[in-house]
């Protein structure tokens, strides 16, 4: 198992002293530290690594980095399993487990491969043309389609790893740490600017990692290591390895995805698996390099057909050999050095097949020195072999690049393709930058920038090392200067020369008829062929965007990194238009896929939204109360005794309060302190009723409308002092009301001198309600609580057990009741004091549910009734509406639609049998058997069993309901299959005259 037949005995940037064992498709292999899963599989000679999406064709490695489109694996197992991970992006670690995808039962014998035989039936978009008959069969067809599609499998268990976010600011962010990025970092770093340099790979160096360039006479990787060390020594420079610049957003926000622990079996010592950085950069340097382009010919997807630069990098950086015998197929000069590298690594290079007519001296020299034969003006027209390539057919081309003349077959187990280079302009485009097409390079390159960024190196079309170093140095300095620092470009080292990339184009190599042309793949991942592009054209899908969507070209996990340009160029050919006229599809975030867990960071699961608790939370908890989320708050629902259900407890509590006394935690109510000389004027403008005659020490119920005249919220206004009020809001509306009031003061009425402060958390609240509430209170305070001292809607500042409190004589339940506000730390003292003092009166705590029952019995409106579509009059507040003053919403509330007779008005409902619970969410109708659509006259908004009346009740909104008391209707809930005959009543079921609360 130690045998790695395709590993060079020496060389490469791997640590041979650290062998690592891993498993692929159940078979155990060995690689070395410094390997990727891809390089290790290559070293082991495993060529068949994947099956294609649609046709299940055998596939092998094609790339070295993020461009890999074939070999996606299911990595790890169990809860840590992850689908669709490119083997090129996986750093090897001890014990790694990977499996191939999209095949059954095995990679070598895949039943799905029958699709390949039937491929004639599956051109692009075939599913739009069929599966329509009989219509009811579509679900079965669809079921089958879905199971064939998809690639890897979703994990089914919860992810055990954690993720982090990180917000940072810097002066210069550099994306990409190849030669250009490193030089940019040197320039910017020496200026003192705060610099972040990130690269998606395990180490810096970019293309230098896989080539044999020299810088300052030393191998590239040595210069990289020196430079990284120099940068690491600069305090103002932050180096981020394994960190992808995933998205470029507005106002120079760059999102980075750092793979903190993906190169390990599991994260260690509580480190997050990934960390998402939100970097706000003053200036950005894009140095994201370029990616080699494949060439399109028949059966160009056979395992062993790959990018030249990839084969070169595997050999140089890992000592891993793509095969024994290679054919290089190129249309430009950059493949020659690579060919020489392969040869030096021990691969027999059978020939360089070069599409160009005449070659230049430098590349000829490389070939001659390496003793490699060159077939210029030739093309590879087809590859042969099934699970691995075993030969290619090569033909000469004429001056129109049409293959003519005699074909020859060359034996080989690797075919290296070099169709030119595609600059990685993703981030530039995301920054809204405009691209232009460079004819010489036959590539899209950055043109006009819109944000504070610049591109340097191969990503902007500089394909020579020397130029990359210079450009990088210059861009780094420019960025630092633009960010306000003084500097000049760092010194640029001398380096070896690169070939000049001037591809001669032939976007798809026509296969002569006698070869019965195999498929010419453009997008390997989505199995899109040159013929598919042709079909799209033929059927009118001419726009690149139609091409993409009709054929799925470029829609895979690699987002068409190696296929888009070829595809659109083929389309341009059909359209007989310039490539510029065809244009590109849109580059979108993320640059490469990022785990959803990382995107969520800490803000998922139980932290997806915050929760708020009251000062009595633990007390409620200790009594076993369940909690109901209400907005952000958790509210205690009730206190079931042994053997009691919550529902039973609710009935008991609600009855007890009306008969005796109870206390409830009402801390969650919104509270706003309103101060200033214009406070009264302000309140008069925002409430429908007037506060002009509200005396200091008095409370008044108030209702606010929205700008459109419908009810917004209600609450109690208390005048604490001449120019000071406290207003309450409903729990869920508190922040919206606060925001709106702040808006009105700041934007519309800046001349009003009023200060607002949300004091919800500064005052906790306890309500005490029931006929004995005064008796209990009197025991804990020396203050005079008589009806004359503290009448209904009165207010007093008193002491309870030594705690200063605000006492409001208000009632939500309709009973004699008070609300007590106090400093939060004193809540428990007051609560305990009341419970203790009330023992003789049999005081009990009651919860949200009982409170709700009490308020339904009393006909008070809350959420279900304050549904944003009700008018003040409809809810029964008509008499409160001031006719003397202007207030927000007054004029719009008079519109015809809001004053019509059949508008929703609040009513009560009682089941005519006085027994059956009225279904929640029921609609009020005349006849459930009527033909649909049935006219709905109203809706049940709140319902409960009333323990005090002994029968169920409900509140409802009914068209013109106030005039319909006494009518019977059906409360109909077809979704739960319930129908109850109800009688319309006054919504105030208990004490309509309000004698109890004044008592």
């Amino acid at each position: 198992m130690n045998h790695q037949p395709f590993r060079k005995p020496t060389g490469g940037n791997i640590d041979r002293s650290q062998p690592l064992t891993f498993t692929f498709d159940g078979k155990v292999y060995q690689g070395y530290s410094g390997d990727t899963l891809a390089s290790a599989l290559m070293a082991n000679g495993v060529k068949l690594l994947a099956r294609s999406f649609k046709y299940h064709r055998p596939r092998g490695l094609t790339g070295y980095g993020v461009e890999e489109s074939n070999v996606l694996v299911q990595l790890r197992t169990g809860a840590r399993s992850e689908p669709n991970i490119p083997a090129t992006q996986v750093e090897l670690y001890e014990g790694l487990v990977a499996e191939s995808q999209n095949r059954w039962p095995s990679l070598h014998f895949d039943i799905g491969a029958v699709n390949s035989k039937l491929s004639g039936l599956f051109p692009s978009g075939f599913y739009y043309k069929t599966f329509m008959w009989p219509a009811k069969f579509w679900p079965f067809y669809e079921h089958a389609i879905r199971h064939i599609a998809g690639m890897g499998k979703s994990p089914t268990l919860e992810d055990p790893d954690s993720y982090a976010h990180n917000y940072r600011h810097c002066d210069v962010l550099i994306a990409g740490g190849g030669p250009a990025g490193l030089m940019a970092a040197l320039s910017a770093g020496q200026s003192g600017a705060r610099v972040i340099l990130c690269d998606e790979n395990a180490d810096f160096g970019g293309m230098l990692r896989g080539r044999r360039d020299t810088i300052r006479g030393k191998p590239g990787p040595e210069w990289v290591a020196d430079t990284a060390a120099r940068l690491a020594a600069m305090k103002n420079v932050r180096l981020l390895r394994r960190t992808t610049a995933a998205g470029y957003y507005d106002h120079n926000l760059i999102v980075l995805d750092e793979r903190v622990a993906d190169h390990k079996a599991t994260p260690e010592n509580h480190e997050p698996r990934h960390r998402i950085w939100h970097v706000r950069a003053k200036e950005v340097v894009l140095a994201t390099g370029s990616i080699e382009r494949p060439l399109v010919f028949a059966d160009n997807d056979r395992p062993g057909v790959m990018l030249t630069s990839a084969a070169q990098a595997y050999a140089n950086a890992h000592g891993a050999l793509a095969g024994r015998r290679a054919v290089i197929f190129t249309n430009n000069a950059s493949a020659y050095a690579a060919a020489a590298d392969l040869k030096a690594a021990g691969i027999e290079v059978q020939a360089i097949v070069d599409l160009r007519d005449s070659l230049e001296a430098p590349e000829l020299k490389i070939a001659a020195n390496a003793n490699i034969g060159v077939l210029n003006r030739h093309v590879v027209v087809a590859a042969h072999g099934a699970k691995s390539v075993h030969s290619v057919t090569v033909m000469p081309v004429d001056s129109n690049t049409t293959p003519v003349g005699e074909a020859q077959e060359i034996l080989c187990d690797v075919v290296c393709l070099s169709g030119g280079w595609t600059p990685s302009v993703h981030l530039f485009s995301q920054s809204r930058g405009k691209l232009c097409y460079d004819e010489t390079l036959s590539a899209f390159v950055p043109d006009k920038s819109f944000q504070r960024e610049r591109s340097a190196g191969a990503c902007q079309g500089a394909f020579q090392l020397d130029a990359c170093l210079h450009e990088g140095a210059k861009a780094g300095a420019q960025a630092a200067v633009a960010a306000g620092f003084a500097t000049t470009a760092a010194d640029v080292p001398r380096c070896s020369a690169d070939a000049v990339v001037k591809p001669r184009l032939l976007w798809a190599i026509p296969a002569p008829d006698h070869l019965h042309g195999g498929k010419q793949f453009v997008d390997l991942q989505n199995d899109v062929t040159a013929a598919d592009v042709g079909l799209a054209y033929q059927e009118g899908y001419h726009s690149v965007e139609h091409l993409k969507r009709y054929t799925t070209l470029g829609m895979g996990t690699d987002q068409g990194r190696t296929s888009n340009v070829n595809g659109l160029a083929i389309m341009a050919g059909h359209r007989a238009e310039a490539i510029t006229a065809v244009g590109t599809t849109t580059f979108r975030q993320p640059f490469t896929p990022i785990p959803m867990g990382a995107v969520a960071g800490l803000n998922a699961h139980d932290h997806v939204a915050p929760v708020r608790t009251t000062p009595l939370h633990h007390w409620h908890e200790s009594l076993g109360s369940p909690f109901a989320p209400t907005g952000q708050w958790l509210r205690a629902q009730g206190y079931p005794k042994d053997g009691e259900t919550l529902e039973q407890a609710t009935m008991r509590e609600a009855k007890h309060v009306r008969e005796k006394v109870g206390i409830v935690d009402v801390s969650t109510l919104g509270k706003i302190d309103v101060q200033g000389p214009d406070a009264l004027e302000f309140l008069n403008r925002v409430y429908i009723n007037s506060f002009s005659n509200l005396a200091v020490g008095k409370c008044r119920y108030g209702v606010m409308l929205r700008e459109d005249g419908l009810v917004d919220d209600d609450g109690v206004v208390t005048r604490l002092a001449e120019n000071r009020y406290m207003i309450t809001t409903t729990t869920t509306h508190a922040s919206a009301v606060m925001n709106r009031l702040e808006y009105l003061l700041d934007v519309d009425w800046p001349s009003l001198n009023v200060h607002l402060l949300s004091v919800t958390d500064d005052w906790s609240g306890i309500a005490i309600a029931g006929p004995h509430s005064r008796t209990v209170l009197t025991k804990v305070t020396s203050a005079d609580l008589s009806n004359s001292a503290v009448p209904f809607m009165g207010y007093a500042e008193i002491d309870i057990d030594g705690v200063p409190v605000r006492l409001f004589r208000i009632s939500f339940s309709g009973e004699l009741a008070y609300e007590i506000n106090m400093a939060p730390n004193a809540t428990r003292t007051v609560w305990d004091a009341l419970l203790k003092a009330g023992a003789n009166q049999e005081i009990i705590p009651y919860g949200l549910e009982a409170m709700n029952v009490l308020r339904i019995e009393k006909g008070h409106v809350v959420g279900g009734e304050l549904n944003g579509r009700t008018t003040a009059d409809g809810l029964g507040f008509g008499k409160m509406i001031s006719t003397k003053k202007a207030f927000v919403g007054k004029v719009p509330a008079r519109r015809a639609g809001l004053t019509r007779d059949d508008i929703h008005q609040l009513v009560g409902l009682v089941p005519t049998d006085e027994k059956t619970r009225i279904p929640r969410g029921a609609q009020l109708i005349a006849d459930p058997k009527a033909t649909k659509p049935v006219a709905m006259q109203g809706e049940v908004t709140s319902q409960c069993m009333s323990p005090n009346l002994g029968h169920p009740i409900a509140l409802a909104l009914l068209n013109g309901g106030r005039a319909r008391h006494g009518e019977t209707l059906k409360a109909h809930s077809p979704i739960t299959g319930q129908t109850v005959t109800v009688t319309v009543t006054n919504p105030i079921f208990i004490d309509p005259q309000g004698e109890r609360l004044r008592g």
Partner: protein
Amino acid sequence: MQKYSIFSLARNALTSHKNWGEAWRNPDPKQEYDVIIIGAGGHGLATAYYLAKNHGITNVAVLEKGYLGGGNTGRNTTIVRANYLLPENELFYEHSLKLWEGLSQDLNFNVMFSQRGVINLAHTDAQVDAHQRRGNAMILNGADGVWLNKHEVKARAPLLDISDRARFPIKGGLLQPRAGTARHDAVAWGFARGADARGVDIIQNCEVTGIDIENGGVVGVQTSRGAIKAKKIGTAVAGHTGHIAAMAEMRLPIESHVLQAMVSEPVKPCLDTVVTSGATHTYISQSDKGELVMGGDLDLYNSYAQRGNFPRIEEVVASVISMFPAFSRLRLMRTWGGVMDMSMDGSPIITKTDINGFYINGGWCYGGFKATPGSGWVYAHTIANDTPHKLNEGFALNRFEHGYMIDEEGSGATPNAH
């Protein structure tokens, strides 16, 4: 029109698919049309299709500034449903849903309408009330609705976390079984092909830059390809409704906002229904190709950029993995945005205007894809007869002035809360 079927597919396979004709022509604009529809999204194309098919009006051009189907039709999360509380909405969307049910056959183009059901999760008792109330209204209006308890929800979406420890525990869900998803691009292409076959000119890369009005009535449009005359002009430009209205000197109760959507990498089937949660404003389904398709709330500021903001993506993804903890290790593959025409009550506007021959179709907010056939149907009626169809009477512009808003959410006059 060349008929599509398994037989035509097999026949064409024999000739290597060399004989398929164009799905639509690419004509140059004529000088004059009876009707010009601005915007070749699903709505514009459906309108043209039904003008021709239902009303015999075929001298029609659909003008598109980009490529057909490239607006919101080509970038939405493809949810098709009719699960509304208010009758104006419910009856209209139910009509639309019925059209969806026969659309592939009608168009002879498989739009892959997949009735996999849409579940609205309820996380609190108040939501259970609200969802059941809505379910009841749906049923009474003639649509379908089913209440699921949390175990029944789980049975349909097995990877959903229904434990009580969740921040938003699942109490149940309102299912509309006939709801589902459709292949968004195919909808535009199918209508385009159908309209084209009936004589409609679809003119791409033709941006409308002005509306010509004389004596209180339209006479034509200015475009990037020259002036074109028309007796009637209808907008169907989704997020650009405000911009076009300004050309006719109208102000509308509409703002343009960006909504983002996103997909994960494709995986084997793991979610066979559509799940939506109002608490976090998230919706998720799995496409036939295997990606999870996810969306959430607007970016919440006016925008005409088809481009969004990262925090919103984070929020959507966070709530998705809170509901489906197993998706944490799936990777987000692509995100994008669309410009939405947000109306001030969250309901659409399909109406004639005070300018003779000028019609408006807009205000689709989060949910106009599902309206596509229904919208085309009633809009074609409105344009052909110069009077609304019964189903869009309520969607008139003057409802705001007179206080007859159709406000499902009860959020009031805001363009971004619906």
